[in-house]
Structure formats: C-alpha cells, structure tokens
C-alpha cells in the first residue's frame, strides 16, 4: 500500500513528534505544568496497559474464543475500581521508601533482601521479554503488511526491520526515560508522551471500528445479523459459544494481576503518581478507557471472520480490513495506533527492567567482583546497556519463538510469570508473618512451575526444543505432563499454569513464613512498618495484646489512697486521687490496662512530689508495690514491643529519650524566656503605639491649628497690607493736602503781609502823581505859587518817606520769607564750640536786655564742640531771645531767661525758658504756624517761631517742643542728634 521509505518516514516523523511532545512536557510552560499535574494525563498514561495485545490481540482472541477476551479487561477494571485503597497504600509506601520499581518495593518489605530482589528481577526479565517480543512482532508484521507491495528493493530492510525498530526503541527509551541516573525521579515528559500516545491509539482504534461498522458494513447490528445467519458454520460458532470457565476466570484474574503487579503498570501507576487524589479520578477514567477501547472488538472480530479468508492471521484483523478496502488513511492511522501501543509499552517496560537489572543484578555483581568495581562510576551507561540488551533479547525471542504464537498467548505467558510476584506483594502488605524466606521459596517454586508448565511447552510447540515431554510427561511420567500436571488438565493452558504456579507459590510462602515466624527467623521491624503505613492496624493489634483492660482499678485506688493518706487528710487524699483519675479520663473505669496504670502511677508521683519532693515521692511509690509480678512482665513486654517497633537498640532509645528530654527542657526554658520577652515587647509595643497615636493626634491637631493660624495670618496680613497701602495712600494724600494747605496759608500770609506795604506805596505814589499833575498844571498855567510848591515839596518828602518805609518793610518781609523757606544761604558745616557761639549772640542783645532789665543765664559746658551749622544755631538762640523780648516780656518791667545746654549719649539738648507772660493753652498749638501772631497790631509778622521750627527740624534735623505752664512763662526743649555734633572730650572724636 505504501513504499518502504514512505512508511519508514511516517515512523520517523511520529518519533520526532513524540520527542517534541516529551520535551514540551518537561518544559516550564504554564500549560505543561498544568498537564503534569492533571489526573487525566495520569489516567491516560495508565493506559500503557493497553499494548498491541489489546490493539491487535483482543480482536484475534475474540475471533477464536468469542467473549473470553473481555474477562481480562473486566478484571482490570474491577481491580482498579475496588482496590483503590490498596493502590493508595502502595503509593504511600513507595513515597516512604522511595521505591524505584516493584522489585524494589517487594524486596524492601522483606528486609531489603538482595536475593529476593535478584530473583524477582530475573523473573521479570524472563516474564516481560516475551511480552516485548510481541510488541516487536506486531510492529514488524503490520509494517510488512503496510509495505507488502513495495517491491524487492526494500526487502533487505524489511527483513531487518525488527533490528531497526529495536534501535529506535533503545533511542526512545534512553532519551525519554533513562537520561538520568536517579530512577526515583519522575519523568513528566515521558508521562505526557505516554498519555498522548494512549489517546492516539484509542482514537485510531475507534476510527477503525467506526470505519468497519459504518463504512464497510451498514452498522454493527448489520454485522451481528450476518454472523447470526451463518452460525451454522464452524468458524462462526465462537460467537455464540460461552467461554470456558477456567479460561474466563484465569483471564479475569490475570487482568487483576496485570494492573497490580506488572512492572510497567507499577511504574506508571505508583512510581509516577504525583498525588493519591489522582487515583480517585483514575478509578473511573481508566476503566472507561478500557471500555471504549474494547467496544468495537467483537464487531471487528465478526467483520474479520466475515470478510477475510479462513487462513488469515486473526491478530491483525484491525489493519487487514482497511487494507482490504484499500483505505490508506485508515490503514496508516491504525498502523500508527498499533505502533503507539507497542512503543509506549516497550519504552516503559525496558526502562523499569533496566532499573531492576542494574540495581538488583548488576550492582551486586559489581560489588562482589573487585575487577568490576570501576563500573560504579558508569552506572548510567550500564543502565543504557541494560536497555539495549533487554530489547535485543526481546528481538531474539521474537525471531526464535513468537512467530508461531498468537499475541495473546505470548502476553498471557508474561502475565502468569508476573503473577508470581503477587503472593509476596499482597502478603507483604497485609500479613505480618510474611517472611523473606517464604517469599524467596514461593517465588522460586512458582517460577519453576511457570517455566515447566507454560514457557517450556511454548518452546516445544515452537520447535525450539524437541521433546516428547508434552505428550509423555517428564521422565515418561504422565502426572508430570507440563500441560496436565498431576493429571489435572484445563481447557486453557494459561489457566493450568496460573493455577499450579500460584498454588505452589502461595502454599510455599505461607508455610515457610509461618515456620519462620514461629522460629523468629528473619522477622524485622520493617514488616511492621510496612503494614503500618497507611493503616495502623498491625500495630494496634499487637498493642491490644499488651493493653488488655483487665487490671481492677479499685484495688489500685485503695493502695494509692493509703499512700496519699500518709501525707494528707483522707478527704484531701480522695480529692487528689480523684483529680488524677479525672485528668487521665479513668474516673468511670472499672478495669484499666497496664499503660493506663503506668500513667496513673506517674501522675500520682508528680502530685505527691509537690508535697514531699520527687525523691521522696518515688521512694514512697516504690514502697507500695503498685505493680504485681505479672503486671511488671506485661509492662516489660509492652516496652520491648514498642522498642522493637522503633527499630532502635535500648541504648539508642535511652539516648534519644535523654536527648528529647533535654531538648524539651531547653525548649521550655527558651519558650518561657521568649514569652516574657514577647510580653515585654508587647507592652512596649502597646505603649509605643499609644504614644504614636497621641503624637499623631497632636500632630494632626497642630497641623490644623497651624493651617488655621496661617490662614488667619494670611488674611490679616492681606488686610494689613491693604490697610497699610490705604494708610500710606491716605498719609500721602494728607501730606499733600497739608502741604497744599500750608502753601495756601503761606501764600495767603505772604500776599496779606506784602499787600499792606505795597498798598501803602501804591496809594502814596498815586497821591504823589496826583499832586505832581496838579502842580504841573498850575505851573503850566503859571498859577503855581511858592507856598503851594513848598507845600508840595513837604508832601512829596512825606510821601517818599512813607513809601521808603513800606518798601523797607516789604524787603524785610521777603527776607523773612526767604529765611522761613529754609534757606541757609549755602552755609557749610563746621566745627565750633557752642558756648562762645551763644555768648556772641547774647552780646548783640546786651543793650536791649539791659534796657528791658532782662537777665540771661547761660549754663553750657565749655568743651561742647559741634560739627554743625554755627550761624543756624545762633539764629535759633537769636529767635528765641527775640520772641521772649517781643512777646514774653512785652508787658513786664524785667525778666529772666535760662539757657541750659546738656549733652547725653545721643542728643545735644538745649533747654530754653523765660519767666515772661507765656502763651495760653489754645495758642500754644499754633505757635509754630506761619503768620500766626498775637502781636499783629504792633508789627508782628508771625514768622519768628515758624522760622525757629524750620531751622531746628529741617536744618539741624532735631526736634523742638514748647510748653507754657500757667504763670511760669514759656519753655522750649530742643534736641539735636549727636550725629550732628561732637562733644570735645578725650573719648570723643570729630566725624
């Protein structure tokens, strides 16, 4: 149908795809991680159980024996559904002991027996090799069918195709399963590849079934009705014949054994199991898989019988039907499905067998034979070699024997061999007495019977061994016929071999184990441990013997009460005893066991120690002989049982007890210390927390206040700024208004003062002009008399005099205005002594003062020297004296003036006072105003005080104050800043 190279390329492509899948499975991608932990992947990988035996062999068996094929899968399904707890225990034990294979698992139970492990490995090797051979057989046969018309050019390759397949399988197995040395390591990539392969082979088989049932025939019932019509023919009779009882039950039993004890099944189901929970899902998923892969078996077998010639190989009905129909797609799919079924079995089996062989056969040899010890460092390569040897051994078996056998027949041979593991496995997990010796002998005898009753006949039937043994029996003894041992023949040689091998195996195992148990041979604590993992049944059972409740509590209570009564009153002793019993939960008990009595004794000793001390309490307790001799023995036995179960020597146990007591004491001490520290820390923490909370609260409050205050200040500041601006503006306006008012007043004063003399001058001049005109007219008319001219001249002189006096007055006014306008006529600052300066001023007034009888007293330090304006200062004093003379002493016949010049750190102070008439309270406020005078009628201009004020404040940069106490004259105080003067002293320097 296909060329050799096309079909071969198909296989290579499939292999590459498988490799990619496995690599992805081992990657860290999220989906791969999820897939690795999936129970569906686990359940699908369990379908490694379905090999080419299932894929091709079931249809072949159904064609020959009707419905018997299904018994195997029913047995497997029932075992998986009902024995889930057993599988869970196996998972737990495996996880506890890190078992690498079923052989490792069993040998661990029997005290890590190397002999047993080697024996079981050998058995597996012998048993599984035929199984591997049928996978090779199915691959090579179907491949040959696929390329049947390919021509002679490929015949060489076709002849050696099994060798090529074996090489591929070796490569696959090493790459997927034996890359690392640690066999306990899980192989997630391989498991995912197995799961995909399982899914693929199921799909392929269902497609084949649908193709045959619905494309070649109309429906499965069409096939059944056709068969029904031809039941009279011998080759169709199998489809209504019931299966043989022995064959049926043997198949069912083999199915149970298969899922429990097949090495590859153990590896996938137990070693690779990530979680026991997966078993709960697999409990229905795996049986469902088995159901689906078997559902089309009977219709396919019937279709094959209907469609194919009588001498065809019934094992390959599944692929022959699509080939016969010429459908290449279905044919290739079926071929690849069968290839997948075979490869997954071969990979896992060769991996587990190589592990067993290396660990239990090769490694002991390496250790025993010194020249081989260098191989210790090359165990991985040894394992690779083991894989290759196992597969080549399978190929050899295939070439030598399996050609003549049906697939199912060969597979059954393997299953019966593996069944020999079952007594040791199940017995080891459930029976405490099961011993290493029993297991070894049982397995040996079972294996011998298997070899004799099943393997040997298959060799003889294949012609590999020529012997009349089958018909005549060993040594001509009929009762030793391999297929009818002891004259008992079965309809199925598988059932026959299974029956006898297991019978001998179990009987040997039980008898020898029982014997060894009685003689205490080979019994180890591992057996107890093995049984206790997952269930404490065994230990509990032993404990029950020691812990029988048959000690009368009342007797013991009486003894203890007597003891306590020695130290306490009766009522208190009863109360104390009652408390101890209550704490132990024994208050309502009538009988107690030895353990409870021991606990009661310890409790009472502690209670008594509180009264009389521990040493005294122990001594008192020993004195009453609480334990009878029998009870002492039972207690000893109990402790020895406990000791045995711990696998520790008494010394080691004591050491451990001491160690743990010491550790407990240290831990308690540390715990107390830590409790105290924790309590202190807790308190500190609480205090800190409270403080922090308070601080936080205060901070928050403060922040709020600051914010509020800042807001208020900002508002106030703004208001103040506005007010200040308003104030400045108002002040400027006021100053401006004041200036304008002063200016107005000044101008009005000036106008008023100038107006008077000017008016007088104008009147005088106009009068003079009138007089002159009149004289001129009289002169021209010649009427002027001498008297009139003299009168005119006299009037003109008077007018000129009046005019001149008013001009002088106007001139004086203008001079005063000029002085009032702060002009110093360019006077420069100079250094001068103040006293001589003042004395010169006084000298100018001397005659006037004498005339008015005014005495001036000058009190001034001679050394006061100023750097200032001397003329201005003279004018100041001049003005003051003028004012006193003009106004103060106006109506007085005499007076006194006092001038006192002082100097402090900051100011030069001139105090001037007179005892004149003074100024009224209403007038004193206006004294410095220009043109204000109380003496206008007497020619006062009202500028003296104003000029004085301007000189002090504007030229000398000082201040002037005036006051007039009633009846005490007038007093001025002038302060001039010292920056403007220098006191002539050693400590003073002129600026």
């Amino acid at each position, binding site marked *: 149908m296909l060329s050799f190279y096309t079909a071969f390329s198909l296989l290579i492509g499939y292999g590459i795809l498988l490799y990619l899948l496995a690599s992805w499975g081992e990657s860290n991608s999220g989906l791969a991680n999820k897939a690795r932990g999936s129970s569906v992947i686990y359940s699908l990988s369990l379908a490694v159980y379905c090999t080419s035996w299932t894929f091709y062999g079931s249809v072949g068996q159904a064609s020959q024996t*009707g*419905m*018997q094929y*299904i*018994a195997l899968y*029913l047995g497997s*399904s*029932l075992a998986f*559904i*009902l024995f889930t707890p057993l599988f869970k225990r196996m998972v737990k034990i495996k996880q506890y002991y890190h078992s690498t294979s079923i052989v490792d698992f069993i040998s661990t139970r029997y005290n890590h027996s190397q002999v047993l492990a080697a024996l079981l490995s050998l058995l597996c090797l012998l048993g599984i090799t035929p199984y591997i051979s049928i996978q090779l057989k199915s691959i090579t046969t179907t491949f040959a069918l696929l390329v049947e018309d390919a021509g002679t050019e490929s015949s060489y390759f076709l002849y050696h195709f099994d060798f090529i397949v074996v090489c591929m399988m070796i490569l696959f197995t090493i790459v997927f399963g034996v890359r690392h040395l640690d066999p306990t390591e899980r192989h997630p990539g391989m498991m995912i590849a197995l799961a995909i392969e399982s899914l693929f082979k199921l799909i392929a088989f269902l497609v084949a079934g649908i193709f045959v049932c619905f494309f070649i025939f109309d429906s*499965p*019932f069409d096939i*059944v009705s056709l*068969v*029904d019509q031809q*039941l009279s023919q011998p080759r169709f009779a199998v*489809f*209504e*014949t*019931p*299966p*043989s*009882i022995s064959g*049926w*039950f043997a198949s*069912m039993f083999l199915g149970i054994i298969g899922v429990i004890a097949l090495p590859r099944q153990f590896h996938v189901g137990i070693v690779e199991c990530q979680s026991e*929970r997966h078993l*709960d*899902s697999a*409990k*229905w998923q795996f*049986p*469902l898989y088995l*159901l689906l892969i*078997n*559902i089309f078996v*009977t*219709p396919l077998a*019937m279709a094959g019988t209907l469609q194919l010639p009588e001498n065809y190989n019934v094992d390959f009905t599944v692929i022959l039907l699509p080939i016969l129909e010429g459908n290449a797609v279905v044919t290739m799919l079926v071929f690849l499905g069968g290839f997948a079924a075979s490869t997954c079995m071969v990979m896992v089996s060769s991996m587990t067998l190589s592990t067993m062989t290396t660990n239990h056969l090769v490694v002991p040899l390496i250790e025993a034979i010194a020249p081989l010890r260098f191989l210790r460092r090359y165990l991985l390569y040894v394992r690779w070699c083991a894989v290759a040897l196992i597969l080549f051994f399978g190929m050899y078996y295939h070439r030598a024997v399996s050609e003549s056998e049906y697939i199912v027949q060969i597979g059954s041979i393997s299953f019966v061999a593996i069944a020999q593991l079952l007594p040791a496995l199940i017995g080891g997990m459930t029976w405490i007495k099961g011993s290493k010796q029993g297991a070894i002998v049982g397995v040996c005898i079972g294996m011998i019977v298997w070899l004799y009753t099943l393997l040997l006949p298959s060799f003889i039937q294949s012609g590999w061994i020529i012997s009349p043994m089958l018909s005549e029996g060993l040594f001509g003894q009929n009762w030793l016929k391999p297929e009818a041992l002891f004259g008992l023949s079965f309809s199925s040689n598988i059932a026959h071999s299974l029956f006898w091998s297991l019978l001998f195996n179990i009987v040997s195992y039980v008898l020898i184990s029982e014997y060894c148990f009685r003689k205490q041979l080979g019994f180890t604590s591992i057996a107890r441990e093995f049984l206790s993992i997952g269930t404490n049944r065994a230990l509990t059972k032993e404990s029950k013997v020691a812990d029988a409740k048959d000690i009368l509590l009342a007797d013991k209570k009486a003894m203890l009460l007597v003891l306590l009564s020695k130290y306490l009153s009766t009522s208190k002793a009863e109360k104390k005893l009652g408390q101890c019993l209550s704490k132990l939960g024994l208050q309502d008990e009538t009988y107690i066991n030895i353990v409870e009595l021991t606990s009661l004794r310890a409790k009472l000793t502690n209670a008594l120690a509180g009264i009389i001390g521990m040493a005294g309490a122990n001594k008192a307790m020993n004195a009453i002989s609480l334990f009878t001799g029998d009870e002492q023995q039972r207690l000893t036995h109990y402790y020895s049982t406990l000791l045995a179960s711990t696998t520790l020597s008494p010394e080691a146990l004591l050491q451990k007890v001491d160690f743990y007591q010491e550790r407990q004491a240290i831990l308690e001490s540390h715990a107390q210390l830590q409790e105290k520290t924790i309590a202190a820390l807790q308190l500190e923490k609480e205090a800190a927390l409270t403080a922090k909370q308070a601080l936080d609260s205060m901070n928050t409050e403060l922040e709020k206040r600051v914010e509020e205050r800042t807001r208020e200040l900002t508002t106030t500041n703004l208001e103040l700024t506005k007010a200040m601006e308003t104030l400045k503006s108002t002040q400027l306006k006021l100053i401006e208004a004041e200036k304008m008012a002063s200016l107005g007043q000044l101008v009005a004063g000036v106008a008023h003062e100038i107006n008077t003399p000017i008016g007088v001058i104008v009147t005088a001049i106009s009068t003079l002009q009138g007089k002159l005109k009149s004289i001129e007219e009289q002169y021209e008319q010649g009427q002027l008399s001498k008297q009139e001219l003299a009168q005119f001249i006299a009037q003109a002189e008077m007018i000129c005099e009046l005019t001149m006096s008013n001009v002088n007055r106007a001139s004086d006014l203008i001079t005063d205005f000029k002085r009032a306008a702060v002009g110093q006529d360019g006077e420069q600052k100079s250094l001068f002594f103040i006293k001589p300066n003042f004395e010169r001023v006084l000298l100018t007034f001397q005659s006037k003062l004498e005339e008015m009888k005014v005495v001036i007293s000058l009190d001034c330090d001679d050394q006061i020297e100023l750097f200032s304006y001397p003329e201005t200062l003279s004018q100041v004093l001049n003005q003051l004296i003028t004012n006193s003379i003009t106004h103060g002493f106006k109506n007085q016949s005499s007076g006194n003036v006092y001038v006192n010049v002082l100097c402090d750190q900051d100011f030069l102070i001139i105090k001037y006072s007179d005892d004149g008439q003074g100024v009224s309270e209403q007038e004193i406020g206006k004294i410095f105003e220009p043109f204000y005078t109380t003496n206008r009628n007497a020619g006062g201009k009202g500028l003296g005080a104003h000029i004085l004020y301007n000189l002090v404040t504007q030229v000398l940069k000082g201040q002037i104050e005036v006051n007039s106490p009633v009846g005490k004259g007038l007093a001025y105080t002038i302060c001039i800043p010292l920056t403007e003067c220098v006191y002539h002293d050693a400590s003073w320097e002129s600026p």
Partner: protein
Amino acid sequence: MRRVARYVVLTLIVLLYSWPAIVGLVMQPWLMWLYPFIIWGGIIISATMNSRIEKESR
C-alpha cells in the same frame, strides 16, 4: 467492615459477568457483544459517583 463489603461486591460483580460462562449459556451474538458493556458502564458510573462523593467529603 468496608473491606469485607468491597470483596462481597467484587464477588457479586464477577459472578454477574461470569454466569454465562459458569452455566454454559448459549447467547445470541449481539447479546454476547453488548451485555458486558452494559454492566461495565453501570460500574463505571457508580465509580464516578463514588469518586465525586469522596472528593466532596474530603
């Protein structure tokens, strides 16, 4: 007790399957094909329910 019950159930199911073989019953081909699957399906459904109950109780 549960263990005993489990073995009783196993025995009953095995007998249920095996009675045609035990009594040597000649069956119609379609019955021979389908009857194991019907019982098988029923057992798987029971196992599924049991598995769910165990998961929920866990």
